[in-house]
């Protein structure tokens, strides 16, 4: 009974979100698009980093790859094919990064992903200057903001379903063991490197798709714009605030933080990154496991005191 109610509630929620463009003005729709994008990014980030504890700082590298694929290919190839190619390139980069770092201790992965966006930005800049001769590109696609929003929403829902499914499957269980203790994991016969690699590849492909789908919104694309490190930073902080190990954590972190960032960038454009950094440090200190855990802890405490009160 409870299950049916939950399913019905979720379907209503999805229907409401899908019909949002019919009620919103252009600004509202833009807000919803950004929100859908960041919720998907944060959920995809948590898909890999939540259970394994590997901190990926490469989100924007994949987002940028996706956006640049659309910018470079959308004039010669049909749109669905471009998305497919973008996903393929994102997957290939993720496999290279994963294969070379995920067998080692987590720090190597962090360092590698830390510079990855900068590396790809320089490579794209080099290619554009020396081969094509121009730095920026324009994207002219007949894709309306509504369509972008629906695509992002669909991708976000797929990502959530994927996380839910992984959490219940064997691979999810394996990931939990890896996150808790790698030695134990290897002793019970889990192929650690392959499990981590698979998850990282899936997460990176989704991030690439987010970038590719959002690209038509920007119209003008340039390496410095699409490889903006703030995106990696925001994704990370959103997933952390909500709780990266929880299914609904990234979503709950992304919604309030995205709105807050919108407000901050509108009102304090010069102090934006200082405030972001301070907020980030605050979250690491005050809510190391995320808001969801914190609420549950408080809830649990309150209940326990209630119980003891009733017993005595």
């Amino acid at each position, binding site marked *: 009974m409870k299950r049916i109610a939950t399913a019905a509630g979720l379907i209503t929620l999805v229907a409401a979100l899908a019909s949002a463009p019919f009620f919103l003005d252009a600004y509202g729709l833009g807000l919803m698009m950004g929100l859908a994008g960041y919720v998907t990014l944060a959920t995809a980030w948590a898909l890999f980093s939540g259970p394994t504890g590997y901190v990926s*700082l490469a989100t924007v590298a994949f987002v940028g790859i996706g956006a640049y694929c659309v910018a470079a290919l959308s004039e010669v190839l049909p749109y669905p094919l471009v998305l497919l190619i973008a996903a393929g390139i994102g997957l290939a980069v993720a496999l290279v990064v994963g294969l070379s770092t995920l067998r080692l201790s987590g720090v190597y992965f962090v360092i590698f992903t830390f510079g990855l966006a900068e590396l790809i930005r320089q490579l794209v800049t080099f290619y554009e200057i020396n081969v094509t001769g121009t730095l920026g590109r324009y994207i002219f696609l007949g894709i309306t903001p509504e369509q972008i929003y629906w695509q992002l929403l669909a991708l976000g829902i797929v990502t959530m379903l994927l996380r839910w499914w992984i959490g219940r499957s064997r691979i999810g269980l394996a990931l939990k063991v890896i996150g808790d203790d790698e030695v134990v994991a290897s002793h019970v016969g889990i192929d650690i490197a392959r499990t981590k690699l698979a998850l990282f590849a899936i997460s990176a492909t989704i991030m690439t798709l987010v970038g590719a789908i959002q690209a038509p919104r920007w119209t003008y694309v340039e390496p410095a714009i699409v490889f903006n490190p703030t995106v990696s930073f925001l994704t990370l902080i959103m997933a*952390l605030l909500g709780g990266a190990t929880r299914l609904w954590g990234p979503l709950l972190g992304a919604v309030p933080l995205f709105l807050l960032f919108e407000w901050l960038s509108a009102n304090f454009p010069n102090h934006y990154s200082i405030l972001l950094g301070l907020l980030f440090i605050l979250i690491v200190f005050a809510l190391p496991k995320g808001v969801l855990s914190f609420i549950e802890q408080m809830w649990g405490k309150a209940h326990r005191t209630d119980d003891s009160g009733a017993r005595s």
Partner: protein
Amino acid sequence: MFVTTLIAGLVLGGTYALVAMGLTLQYGISRIMNLAYGETIIAASFLAYALSSSFNINPLISLVLAAPLGFVFSYLIYGLMLRPLVARSKTAMALEIDSILATFGLLFVIQGVMLLMFGGNYISYSYMNFGVDIFGASVAANRLLALVLALALGGGLYLLLTRTLWGTALRAVAVAPSSAPLVGIDANRAVRLAFALGGALAACGGVVISMYQTFTATTGVVFTMKALIVVIMGGVGNLLGALSAGLILGLVETFVATYVSPGLTLAAVYLIFLGILLWRPSGLFGKARR
């Protein structure tokens, strides 16, 4: 051409070695992966720039000022921000994640302050900008001075760590953090001093860099990354390893920039990094650890 490139490479490599030594102290002894390290470097560059352009103060004097400032700043950061995380974390991995996240936040704070104060433009100032003749090649005097300073500071640190009781204590904490207290070493204090010393080196590196390079408020990230790569190449905690890895990286970068294309330097650095990860993850000179 070749000699000029070689010297330019040595200068750059010497600077990398210098900043990487600071990072290897912070990561090897204090076990803090400091992602805001490059921002400390650039902050010192801005200090040297501001003093030089506003008050016409010689960068060598800025160097003497920057080192203790970097020391105090890092000492405070460790005490206020990182020490609670160290106390809280139960495992080395938890500390690693927490310190990465906290210093990632710090990166944005320092960068934001610098953007606010100096803007996002490319910055440079002119200091000792005349040529010196070496083996028939003309080399800018500021570069030579940078190389000498990098070698002197790096060598001084090496002697400090290997020849004094104090340095030996630091190295003991690096090798066996849990056993060091047994022989009467205050591990907490050693760790904090190592972190602060790393910050002082970063500040020195920043002033040296500002003498011959242009920089922006956002270049810190690149320096952090290169310093990290040098640290891994040389083996974590290994000072001589950091020195030689830094020189190699600087030479490779300069030669790629001169003979291939300046746009591919980072790609070359990453290629080396990839090779190291695949074949010698414990560093060129490191023994297999753990």
